[in-house]
């Protein structure tokens, strides 16, 4: 297990470093500056601003300084949200985004695995085809369509649920639902395929022949190998949920990381965009790592 962990870290850390390097260089060589505005600053002020933010130094010096700071958890000052550091904005937004993404992941896994099992119970039956169709549509339902539609139906027409902000627990329902839908569809499909394959394998037939109850056969013998593709999907799913959260936070006006990211991107707030990209990359690599470790738990052959 430790060997897998170390081997995976050996690829994950250089990847993270490459992300930082690439986005840093891209950001700094980009035309235009965050201090561009309708009324150009006079040269002296401009020079002073550049000096304050260290933008007058050569690129390699800026990069070294930035890496050093990032290692200490300091992503620099936000250029647009004056008086805020990027780390401060991240500390504000991250808990909201993580709660949103975490709840959506749990919901998607629960719905998807349950749907996949129900479908695989009788392959080709009406329930299987119905769930298959539902999950094919769910996969194609991007959060920026589901989000507004849910708001329209449950918020504006029926007035059952709040449409924005986070004033009550009920406010989480619509955003989590919209975010979880495509992931749930993908999980259902993976579970269904994996389970249908597992059900006809020798060890499952043996378990049946031993007279075990159908439930035991399903849960103890068929499900673990069937869930392997689902677990390897955890990494991409985390990436999908994080990107989806960007839209969901914009649609529902939630004070999460994604909203800062979009605002930062639209306003050329380089330190903010860079900080959030690094954080997202780190999170996604972390999820891939967790997926690899779980993989080892489910499939003894992968422990080697």
């Amino acid at each position, binding site marked *: 297990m430790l060997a897998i962990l170390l081997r995976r870290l050996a*690829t*994950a850390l*250089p*990847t993270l470093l*490459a*992300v930082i390097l690439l*986005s840093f260089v*891209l*950001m700094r*060589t*980009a*035309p235009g500056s965050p201090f561009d505005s309708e009324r150009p600053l006079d040269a002296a002020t401009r020079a002073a601003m550049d000096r304050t933010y260290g933008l007058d130094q050569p690129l390699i010096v800026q990069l070294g300084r930035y890496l050093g700071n990032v290692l200490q958890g300091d992503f620099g000052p936000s250029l647009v949200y004056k008086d805020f550091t990027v780390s401060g904005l991240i500390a504000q937004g991250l808990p909201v985004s993580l709660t949103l993404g975490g709840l959506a992941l749990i919901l998607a896994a629960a719905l998807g695995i349950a749907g996949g099992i129900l479908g695989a119970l009788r392959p080709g039956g009406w329930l299987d085809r119905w769930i298959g169709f539902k999950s*094919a*549509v769910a*996969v*194609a*339902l*991007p959060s*920026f*369509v589901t*989000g*507004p*539609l849910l*708001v*329209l139906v449950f918020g*504006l027409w029926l007035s059952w649920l709040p449409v924005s902000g986070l004033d009550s627990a009920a406010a989480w329902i619509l955003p989590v639902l919209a975010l979880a839908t495509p992931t749930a569809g993908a999980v259902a499909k993976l579970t269904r395929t994996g389970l249908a394959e597992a059900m006809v394998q020798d060890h499952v037939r043996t378990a049946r022949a031993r007279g075990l109850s159908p439930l035991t056969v399903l849960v103890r013998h068929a499900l673990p190998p069937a869930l392997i593709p689902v677990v390897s999907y955890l*990494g991409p799913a985390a*990436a999908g949920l*994080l*990107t989806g959260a*960007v*839209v969901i936070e*914009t*649609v529902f006006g939630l004070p999460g990381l994604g909203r800062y*990211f*979009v605002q930062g*991107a*639209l306003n*050329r707030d380089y330190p903010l*965009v860079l900080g*959030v*990209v690094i954080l*997202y*990359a780190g999170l*996604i*690599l972390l999820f*891939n790592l967790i997926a690899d470790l779980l993989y080892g738990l489910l499939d003894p052959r992968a422990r080697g």
Partner: protein
Amino acid sequence: MKVAGALLVAIVVAALLLPPLLPWGYAAIDWNAVRAPAFSPGHLLGTDSVGRDLLARTLAGTRVTLAVATAAALVALVIGTAWGATAGWFGGRIDEAMMRVVDALYALPFMFVVIVLMVVFGRSVLLVFLGIGAVEWLTMARVVRGQVLALRNRPFILASEAAGAPARAILTGHILPNIASVAIAYLMLTVPQVVMVESFLSFLGLGVQEPLTSLGILVHDGADDMDIAPLTLIVPGFVLVATVVCLNRLGEGLRARMAR
């Protein structure tokens, strides 16, 4: 698969041929019919918040979205095939190094890389599809590499190698024709993914820019105005989802048929 194909053809044909037949263009403003309901005279699906015909706008948006998606998928096809075929052909260390790069890129937050590209180089349609194509080629590279690897030691390839054919001739003459069907199936599966990415970016205001329109922009505008004119959200949203579902179905059907 037949239903999906028929619906997709209907959407594409409508997007390509119908706009000139409509009384209003996608950017034309009808001052007398702002937020007109469906079935108003001249506006079958009504108009948006500034009086532009919803049907014309949806068709124009579909056209832009599909054009960007097709172009980006072709970019992905070219990069992915070249990368995967090279890795699979040479094998050994080169293969390992090239596939390690693909693995590393797989772990990246694509969407954010594209957004960084958009921020850095400004927002243009050309860049949207180049950027998306540049990050969507990974699956294609993996698939092509696997195919080439399997073909590499087949007798007819070994025979032409032994006969002294240059690598370039073998690749274009024997390998490419044999991987074409699988590559096309994956091309079909890349298109809906690109549709999603493009709509996502446009929805956030980082993709296609006004006065051009795309399904993502229309969904965004519709979401802003949905309490008064719900159709402005529902129509482009439905077209987007229907297009993606159909493309996915077709792609999966093709893949199942090609996999043999």
